[in-house]
């Protein structure tokens, strides 16, 4: 095994690890915005590492150019897509998760922070309760 192959294996294993981190973040984090954070940072790093390993395995070929182009493209577009989705959610008045007020700022009757996966009442289509949500969030924050 040449050193180049060893480096390729290490890169692929590290990329798989960061892919696992991204998946755990998307499944476990409490909010849309934190999930977008996980998918835009950890997933992008996993992609870059894995594609670097693939490019090292492929050797000198035109496939390496395609792999590098694919890596650069995903490096640009994956955080951009997450940012666009998050901005759309913010324009739809989905309030962020805040500390100490259960699952969500509006849902006062939500359970403890961990282990409540369903309490996010503001969907995209019944939007216009942003000021109330923000007031509730700030009052709940002040109660601590």
């Amino acid at each position, binding site marked *: *095994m040449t050193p180049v*192959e060893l480096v*390729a*294996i290490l890169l*692929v*294993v590290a*990329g*798989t690890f960061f*892919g*696992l981190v*991204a*998946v755990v973040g*998307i*499944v476990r984090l409490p909010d*849309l915005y934190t*999930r*977008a954070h996980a*998918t835009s940072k950890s*997933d992008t790093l*996993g*992609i870059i590492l*894995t*594609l670097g*390993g*693939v490019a090292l*395995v*492929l*050797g000198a*070929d*035109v*496939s390496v150019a*395609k*792999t590098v*182009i*694919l890596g650069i*493209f*995903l490096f640009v*577009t*994956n955080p*951009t*897509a*997450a940012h*666009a*989705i*998050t*901005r*759309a*959610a913010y*324009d*739809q008045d*989905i309030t962020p998760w805040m500390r100490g007020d259960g699952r969500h700022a509006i849902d006062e009757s939500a359970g403890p922070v961990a282990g409540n*996966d*369903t*309490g*996010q009442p*503001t*969907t*995209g*289509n019944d*939007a216009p309760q942003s000021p109330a949500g923000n007031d509730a969030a700030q009052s709940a924050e002040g109660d601590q």
Partner: protein
Amino acid sequence: MAVSGIIDTVLLAAAGAFVLFAIVLVYRIVAGPTMQDRVIAVNGIGTNAVVVLALLAAALDQPGFLDVALVYGMLNFLMSIAISKFTVERGGVI
């Protein structure tokens, strides 16, 4: 390209792991409270599919998979941007 057996094994194992991650992400599509959660999960599944295609292109020695991966990545990005725009301007498409 002379690829030894252990590298093929590692690449195929990584591809299998990414497929497993995509299957786990289906949970967020099913359970995600808002539509944007589902869009982010679908975006992550598409990204995993691109990585799996690149890994298979290297492991199975088929460079055509890289072209498929490029087109799939572009369509994945276009899906996210289009759903975001329609969500803001028209109140959602899903």
